[in-house]
């Protein structure tokens, strides 16, 4: 292995129903179709060197998923993006790639996510009231079925920010492709920033929290998109986990 490449990709539209396992299989095939000189692990059953940062839940769209691959010969990240994107189904879109530099690994650069939650059929005022109630409550216990069985945990503590957007119609959230083909339905839009915790608080946990504190019951399933993942700064910004690698490349080129 001569190089490690970090890649950002998106899960959009209908293909947001791709599970992480499904994506991993599709990505391995895309690597072969694109002719990427992927490195393999040693041993009896060699596996391609691909590792994933925390993946968005099945059914949730994302503009910011990350993975890292190892290659046997040097590749140009820009060409890699094009080749991999062409080899994946539309809706699984490769957006960015950088050569991994020194410093902390991907996982260590991700401790928060920003999500957009569209609630078709929910009036903005009702959402705003529920959000206010949620934020005013110091602890909001919710339940979820995890691999360890049914667990109860606090959905409030991990929430860094929760705001109600201007509202409008589904499918036109600023600069973000609509996660679905539904357009023109009035809906409330929530912007959520969550710190990574254990167990992870996911958007559906926050929605459960809104149900707990304010009986907010969306008439149809909400549509959720992860917009950003990265390091949370003191000022509440989320730093792109590929930025550090990109800066190093820039320094090296200078």
């Amino acid at each position, binding site marked *: 292995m001569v190089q490690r490449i970090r890649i950002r990709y998106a899960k959009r539209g209908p293909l947001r129903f791709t599970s992480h396992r499904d994506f991993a299989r599709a990505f391995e095939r895309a690597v072969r179709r694109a*002719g990427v000189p992927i490195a393999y692990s040693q041993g009896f059953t060699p596996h391609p060197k691909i590792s994933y940062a925390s993946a968005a839940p099945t059914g949730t769209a994302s503009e910011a998923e990350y993975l890292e691959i190892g290659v046997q010969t040097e590749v140009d990240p820009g060409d890699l993006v094009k080749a991999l994107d062409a080899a994946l189904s539309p809706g699984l879109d490769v957006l960015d790639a950088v050569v991994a530099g020194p410093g902390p690994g991907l996982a260590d650069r991700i401790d928060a996510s920003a999500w957009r939650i569209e609630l078709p059929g929910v009036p903005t005022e009702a959402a705003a009231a529920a959000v206010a109630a949620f934020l005013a409550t110091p602890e909001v216990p919710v339940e979820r079925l995890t691999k360890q069985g049914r667990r109860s945990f606090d959905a409030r503590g991990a929430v860094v920010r929760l705001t109600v957007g201007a509202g409008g119609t589904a499918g036109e959230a600023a600069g973000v492709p609509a996660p679905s083909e539904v357009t023109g339905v009035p809906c409330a839009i929530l912007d959520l920033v969550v710190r990574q915790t254990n167990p992870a608080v996911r958007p559906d946990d926050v929605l459960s929290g809104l149900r707990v504190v304010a009986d907010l019951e969306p008439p149809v399933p909400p549509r959720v998109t992860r917009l950003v993942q990265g390091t949370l700064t003191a000022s509440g910004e989320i730093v792109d986990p590929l930025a550090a690698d990109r800066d190093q490349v820039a320094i090296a080129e200078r």
Partner: protein
Amino acid sequence: MSVASVFPRLEQLLPRVSKPIQYVGGELGAVVKPWESATVRWALMYPDAYEVGLPNQGVQILYEVLNERPDVLAERTYAVWPDLESLMREHGVPQFTVDAHRPVGAFDLFGVSFSTELGYTNLLTALDLAGIPLDSAERTDAHPIVVAGGHAAFNPEPIADFVDAAVLGDGEEAVLEITGIVRDWKAEGSPGGRDEVLLRLARTESVYVPRFYDVDYLPDGRIQRVVPNRPGVPFRVHKRTTTDLDQWPYPKKPLVPLAETVHERYAVEIFRGCTRGCRFCQAGMITRPVRERSIETVGQMVREGLKFSGFSEVGLLSLSSADHSEIGDICSGLAEQYEGTNVSLSLPSTRVDAFNVTLAQELSRNGRRTGLTFAPEGGSERIRRVINKMVSEEDLIRTVVTAYTNGWRQVKLYFMCGLPTETDADVLQIARLAHEVIRSGREASGSRDIRCTVSIGGFVPKPHTPFQWARMERPEVIDERLRQLKQAINGDRSLGRAIGYRYHDGEPSLIEGLLSRGDRRVGAVIRRVWEDGGRFDGWSEHFSYRRWVDAAAAVLPGYGVDLDWYTTREREQSEVLPWDHLDSGLDKDWLWQDWQDALGEYEQEDCRWTPCFDCGVCPSMDTEIQIGPTGRKLLPLTPVNSGLRVPV
């Protein structure tokens, strides 16, 4: 007139069902065309879950053949699981295609491929969800023409009420011919409506339209005759045969799913047809004659199929793959090309023969030698003569010993239970054979770390085979034999420990037998089972024997027959069989003679290497055996590089 996607409505339901990705489409190789661009539109269905249906070769081939035509569009649909079915009913979402999520009811033709009769209830679910009346007779010009295909369509009588037409045999050319007839009829302004287009199809003599045939019964319940009730409708409908497989190198662009499916590989059919003559095997009887795909075309398909799909496994498919006249060169050629890559090659459906171990060795250059599978099918030499599976015990032992000494640790052996003339002793021989396999294997390999799995399937007599007249054994008898066999295998603790044992209960086979050899009266049973909630009958967790028995008991006595009459009753030579008017090319007299030979324990040779024995197919279908060797080579000879370097 355009047709709206149902996806916006479906999408609301998907977060509430298991594995939603199976309903989303988006496969590589999938084709979505504008609705208006096509004059003829097909919805193709494999009537099982997506994970089983997607890899189906038949549907993939027809999908590609149809979509290559600029004025034709084809989309796919699969059986939805009960969780989604109930939500679709609740929210009024119709059966949809996965390609563009268009309602199935909007298409001109609805083609359903039946590999097994156990998909019949799923057909009814799909029709009902699509808003298509279950009864063919109640459909109007607004409804698609429902066409059945696949092996089960060689006796479509049990679903005669539910389908408008059935096609026997190879589909590549048949779908295009049907498309042409429908296209012309539509261009003329659909004169005479549904009846007229069905009549035009029937007059080709290769599309069976059940409504144009009347079935008369004798007082004892047997069929008296099946006759056309319209002028110009042929007395017999003939199967289709695609000759020259090199002209039809499909699938070129295999569908690569996002969801996990039962086969994740690029499959290339290296030949079609089989004349080994196993008497239980419907596939081997109805797909004659043998037509090989040339080594060059196989090589090209593998190369391009892998490049297109990114699959890392290749399956060389056929009914008996090692019988290809150039299989040695194909295997060594491919093994050479892909040596050192992560591509693995597999050769399913091989016969019991040491040569196959050599082939498997070639193919496993890259990978592991985990398991080899052989199918002696019968436990005793006697029963193997009855079924015409010409494998001696010596062959079998030699073959598995070769496998064990060459590094394979695991051998799987397939057998059947319930075969004609079978006794307890025939089945118990399986235990002795398995013991011998382990004993010889341990001795030859010098290792105790070897295993053998014995897998038993239930015999089901099928139409157009020499066993079409045979009686089925009762489930209780089958289950008792299987119990005794288990005991016998474990009778020797040391050997039994190395033997795995898998089997199916006799009950599902009996129902499959009812559906395989059923006539139009069985349609009422299928409908009742479906109304009673029957779905996914090929899945043991969904299949209910009780439901079928109850439905049969409620419906069949009205016709003076019962479940036993269809299953455990032996037929006489003179009986009119429900599929006699459907011509697979096999001469009924020859089939009867072969049945008598089975009872007399006489074997039948393979006509590829011995003179023709007059099964009737070639002259009646105007076909011939197409086999090599061609003497040509798998091109190119240069190894394929795994890493196409991306320039820096």
